[in-house]
């Protein structure tokens, strides 16, 4: 590539010199279409299989612009040649591990054992600490694994009972894993600042956010849309915090609202702030990604269980009733209009 660019760059100058320069026109093939029978109809001869355009492009092939032609040609040549000279065996597929697959090696590889400098420790974490190496606390990985499995169990059971799980990771770089975990567990995510008071003063802060009524299969029931007005805001049933040190306010609000929490507790964090601590390194993105992935998978398992139950016609939780939804949210009594209708 570099050589080709070089060729293009230099050859322009050479051509501009208007003398017979030994520049082969091959270097310019990416710039101008060369009239050769081999490349005259590339898009018809080589089907572009992996093209992301395949689904989107609706243009007929006659009306292709020059740039698109060029790009298609490039795609085709890539598809034709990119396997040349190599055999791909095992490729790394970044699917999060589930709790049952977690081993100490995984945890060690992700660096979950790295604590903080010994001077910054919180003595309440002494039971999770394996030892000291080079002035840094090492977290005991078997403890981490045990706590992680317990937390995964909690997440799974909450998900299985239709609970609302909130994944919070507000550090830079945690966005992707937080969103991914929330996607797996059908939970909710927050990767920017937690707005203080979202739980304790939810009417003001989350009052305008939409809610919906779903059935057991998580399909929306639009006929209840009008009954959702003036309802209290939804509160999570479990909060997973990847960086509890920065989210003290969130944890405090959860405590006030009796919301159980799961948090990654590093050696300098206070383990009593969360309900279910996971002693691990919270400063490494690899570590937090791993843990978020595990919890996300656990949530996914729980959700699958719940949906399976729903297929059997069972609720694993206490559903809301249609009559209750139709009651006045303020008084708990039937609405005036309903009463009139009944009369």
């Amino acid at each position, binding site marked *: 590539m570099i050589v080709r660019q070089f060729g293009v760059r230099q050859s322009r100058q050479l051509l501009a010199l208007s003398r017979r320069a030994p520049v082969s026109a091959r270097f310019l093939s990416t710039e101008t279409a060369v009239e050769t029978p081999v490349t005259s109809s590339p898009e018809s001869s080589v089907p572009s299989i992996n093209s992301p*355009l395949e*689904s989107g492009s609706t243009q007929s092939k006659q009306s292709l612009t020059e740039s*698109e032609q060029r790009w298609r040609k490039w795609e085709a040549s890539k598809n034709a040649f990119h396997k040349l000279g190599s055999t791909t065996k095992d490729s790394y597929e970044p699917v999060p591990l589930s709790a049952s697959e977690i081993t100490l090696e995984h945890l060690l590889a992700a660096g979950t054992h790295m604590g903080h400098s010994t001077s910054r420790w919180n003595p309440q974490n002494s039971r999770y600490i394996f030892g000291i190496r080079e002035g840094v606390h090492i977290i005991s990985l078997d403890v981490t694994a045990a706590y992680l499995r317990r937390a995964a169990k909690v997440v799974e059971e909450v998900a299985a009972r239709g609970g*609302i799980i909130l994944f919070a990771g507000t550090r830079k770089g945690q966005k992707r894993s937080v969103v991914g975990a929330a996607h797996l567990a059908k939970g909710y995510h927050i990767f920017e600042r937690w707005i203080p008071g979202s739980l304790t003063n939810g009417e003001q802060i989350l009052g305008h956010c939409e809610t919906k009524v779903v*059935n*057991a299969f998580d399909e929306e029931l639009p006929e209840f849309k009008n009954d959702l007005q003036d309802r*209290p805001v939804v509160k999570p*049933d479990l909060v997973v915090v990847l960086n509890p040190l920065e989210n003290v306010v969130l944890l405090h609000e959860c405590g006030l609202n009796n919301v159980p929490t799961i948090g990654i507790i590093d050696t300098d964090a206070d383990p009593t702030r969360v309900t279910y601590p996971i002693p691990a390194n919270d400063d490494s993105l690899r570590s937090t990604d791993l843990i978020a992935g595990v919890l996300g998978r656990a949530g996914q398992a729980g959700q699958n269980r719940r949906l399976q139950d729903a297929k059997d*016609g069972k609720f694993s939780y206490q559903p809301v009733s249609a009559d209750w939804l139709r009651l006045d949210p303020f008084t*708990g009594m039937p609405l005036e209009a309903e009463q009139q209708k009944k009369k």
Partner: protein
Amino acid sequence: MARHAPNGIVQAMQLLRLQGTPYRRVIPSLRPTARFYATETEPQTPSTEALPEQTAEPQLEVRPAPEINFAKFQQRPARIVPASRAYFSGNPRFIDHVLNLEHLQQKYASLPQVPAGEAPRMAWFKLAQFRDFVGEAVPVKKYRSLLKLLQQLNRIEPGIAPQEVRTAISVFLRPGNPYAKEHTPREVDENGCARAKGKRKTSTAVVQLVEGEGEVLVNGRSIVDVFPRVDDREKALWALRSTERIDKYNVWVRVHGGGSTGQAEAITLAIGRALMLHEPGLKPVLRKAGAITVDARRVERKKPGHVKARKMPTWVKR
């Protein structure tokens, strides 16, 4: 398990409302006294507990569970959940848009892009419009980052850009693309009158130039009235003087704002532009004379902590 009890404020209001009423119907099943945690074991089987008609009046005889009616089961509400995964962020719609755009960007990262200047010009929502559109108070900084995403997606080569991307970014366009309309060059109108505008400092002048004998009216008054200084008059008519056209045109000016210098030079610019409409060939002359060169300088604003725009208070030792 999802809780459906009203929170503290609503309960308090509810109590207040119920104080005056003679009777108070309490529906025990709707007011769970204890909190159900998801980790707790369920005390009753949900299939019997869930039915409201059963809870409303006590059942005496035990019946077998009714047959599952899947059609009805699908109609039954089960939970109230947030509509968006970003519910707890406070502006879920905005975050959903951002995530969608980021997803698209990752998906089509390999597509060739054109330089920023060659991308089709798009009129994105202004901030206020966008706030109306999503119905949330989006901060300026966050909206800028969204615009950056949109511009990057917009830079995908127009011929190749997938339909998905095009529809996604077209959501954020202002209604009626203002860049779509062609720029029409000004011309002398059917009455032989050329209109042009000029600005200088805080003055704005609108000039109507017709062929005539060199009469000048400024705001309906004589130029001598408006500009008692000869210099100002000479400046105002400089475009005509420098091209020796002063006796060929009549000038009718409306000027407002600023002082005499600003007004005079605003008129210069306006007359120069209007004259170019009549005689485009004069452009190099006018350019050389400085009659159509815009002076974009404005008074710099005063800053807090400064005495003037830049001057700082005198340093005092103590």
